[in-house]
């Protein structure tokens, strides 16, 4: 029995995940004072409200151009200044969050759905299924995320939906691996063995024990992944592979500001700050939630 427990499979996948890519982030997140975490959570709340009801924050439309007001520095009238077409930047950022967050959440949904599906099938199936899926996942993850996304877009065309799909696919391996490892761990756990001695069917075992205990990992992993997906999405938008101007997506806005930076700094700084804050909030709050969840179990 003790030999079983020392098998590498028994290392909690969550731990492996943390060790591999998130350890540094988690350490920083764990040390942040509660006030900072609370402020970040508040920011996140504001972002969510802005996505749902942008009218609450800004009265105008993000597409309303007014050439007379082009490239104005931040002022009482235009809190974050205006762009080259005289559009109010605050309005564009508030509406822009819709696109950026939408891409993030959409991509995450794609990675979670397919990652969980592959992970479960690999973990529950026989060794052949497991091997085939594992190699398939290896192939996907052999491509750097951005390269993979470029590939998807190259076969289709730039646009918000294709971008979301591209970013989503690139994160599938991450979820598939965690879920597969967790499935294997739960499947060979003592409590599943005991359930077998109560005469439970295979389907009962999976529905009653394996699924619930495996899927508890998902929400927090997903939350952190939204942050990663937003960055990837904005990055590709910046390369003009996603939504096209005049869409007020934050990556697109950053891209447009490139040539104007010398005389209109606000066009680069504010979207960048909003984007960074949102991603940092998602990561830190997610990491803290994960920590708390782990402590509770």
């Amino acid at each position: 029995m003790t030999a079983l427990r020392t098998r590498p499979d028994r290392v909690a996948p969550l731990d492996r995940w943390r060790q591999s890519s998130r350890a540094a982030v988690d350490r920083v997140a764990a040390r942040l004072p509660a006030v900072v975490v609370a402020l970040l959570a508040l920011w996140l709340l504001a972002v969510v409200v802005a996505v749902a009801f942008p009218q609450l924050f800004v009265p105008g439309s993000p597409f309303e151009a007014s050439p007379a007001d082009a490239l104005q520095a931040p002022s009482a009238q235009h809190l974050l200044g205006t762009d080259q077409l005289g559009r109010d930047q605050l309005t564009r950022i508030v509406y822009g969050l819709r696109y950026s967050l939408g891409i993030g959440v959409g991509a995450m949904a794609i990675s979670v759905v397919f990652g969980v599906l592959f992970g479960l099938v690999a973990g529950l199936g026989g060794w052949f299924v497991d091997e085939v899926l594992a190699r398939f996942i290896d192939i996907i993850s052999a491509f750097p995320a951005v390269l993979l996304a470029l590939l998807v877009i190259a076969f289709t065309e730039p646009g918000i939906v294709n971008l979301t799909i591209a970013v989503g696919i690139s994160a599938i391996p991450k979820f598939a691996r965690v879920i597969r490892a967790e499935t294997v761990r739960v499947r060979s756990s003592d409590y599943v063995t005991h359930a077998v001695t109560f005469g439970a069917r295979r389907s009962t075992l999976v529905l009653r024990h394996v699924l619930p205990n495996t899927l508890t990992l998902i929400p927090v992993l997903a939350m952190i992944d939204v942050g990663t997906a937003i960055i990837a999405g904005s990055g590709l938008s910046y390369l003009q592979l996603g939504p096209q101007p005049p869409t007020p997506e934050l990556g697109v806005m950053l891209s447009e500001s490139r040539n104007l930076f010398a005389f209109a700094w606000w066009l680069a700084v504010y979207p960048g700050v909003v984007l960074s804050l949102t991603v940092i909030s998602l990561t830190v709050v997610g990491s803290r939630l994960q920590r708390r969840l782990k402590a509770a179990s």
Partner: protein
Amino acid sequence: MTGTVASAVPAGDGPAVEVRDLRIGATRRGRAAGDDEIVHGVSFTIEAGRCVALVGESGAGKSITARALLGLSGDGTAVTAQTLRVLGDDVLGYSAAQWRRLRGGRAGLILQDALTSLDPLQTVHSAISEVLRQHGTVPRSRVDARVVELLELVGIADAAERSRQRPGQLSGGLRQRALIATAIAADPGLIVADEPTTALDVTVQRQVLDVLAERKAAGTALLLVSHDLAVVAEIADEVLVLKDGHVVERGTPRQVLASPQHEYTRRLIAAIPTAASRGTRLAVTEGVAERTALPPRAVGEAIVIEAAGLVKSYALPGAAQSFRAVDEVSFAVHRGETVGLVGESGSGKSTVGQIVLGLTAADSGTVTLDGADWSVLPERRRRARRRSLQLVSQDPLSSFDPRYSAARVVAEALPASLTAAQRRARIAELFDRVSLASTLAQRSPSRLSGGQRQRLAIARALAADPVAIVCDEAVSALDVSIQAQILDLLADIQAESHLALLFISHDLGVIHHIADRVLVMERGRVVESGDAGEVFENPRAPYTRRLLADVPRGLELAPTV
């Protein structure tokens, strides 16, 4: 104490450890220190070359007392004492850096679980040489030679070969000895050993005790923490019995065991299962000094489990021959009977349990259950009868779904045909049967004590209304007092319901106490079997004799056993 400290004998003429009125309190936020005192004034002295042992139930404060000597009592504790001197130094005001220099250098620590105490990725060599380098014990050029010397010192054969292996590649006994080698690498004047032999089989336990005795003879002071009086009696010069952070009794092992003064000590001694305790209760209630008889039970004629010619081999990577984990094992368990399966770790006894339960398929041989085919049935047909054969394993917590409450754990094993009201009634009945308070029903098993968890595991097994239960090291992880209660509970249940028990354990005392008949397994083979009293008193197989010779003898001092 500056410069090289390589001597086993502490500087100065004083004792190696001097503790007077040691108090340890938990300092929680919002409370003053001392509000939650765990250890209330413990005093003892250890001279060089002597051994003091702390014994008591879990939660008695013995571990934290021992760890306080090395500055390891943990965050959130406050240690105060009139005197706390370790190897001639007043350690009360030690800084973290001073503690680090003390630990691993002049004082070594040995913990129960060598597997988690050693870094799995480090070879034995690098684990030991790290200690040597850190404390500058020997010149760099001598490190390699010293590592081999140390491994030989703790009785590891092929030391040079073994030093290149990692903990995962070593057996339990080798691992525990490698851990001891790291603890003594810097030639410490003091060794603190916290349950160093718990959960080890007798053979390995014997090896570890011998190494510790050698260190003692070489002049090292030893502080031993254990719940096992038999182990303690063998090696200690002075025994302190702790209860709730108080020393209730102290003396030489002979005094404490032969004429225990405190009722608590008498209870601890009575709780140890041995030959003499057969047929009696191990857990002695307060106010009663002697063991009382267990209810009589009848062994029936009907055979419940019959195993014939079981064989199971595993392919070894890189080896031409496969490894025979179970080799031609046959036995029968009758209604109401307890059959003990005993042997070292790796002897194949757990595999036999798995085959009987139908969780592992045997290569050849058959198992019948209640006179009908069992092992040859396809899983589909076995399912309906699975509930009549249940399992109680060593680590109850891992056998519960972490999301489940205690009541739900039990409910899972109930037949699906019951109504909600019947379920509730049955769960309450089962909780009552294993003496678990009904108020614990909604609690998560992670918030139950070790004894309560094992009671819950038994309640769940009973919920399936089985004819037989396989107990796989079911009491091995429990301390003596809790083990006594669980063994008594099993005996009561068996007397009531005539369950057949297949009791797998490495603990000869437990088997001798509980089993009617016994099978001794060595490397997959049954080397001896028969009536438990007969086998233990007149062992015929050399292997059985060796096992019995390795059992700590300390208890023979006690008149009651």
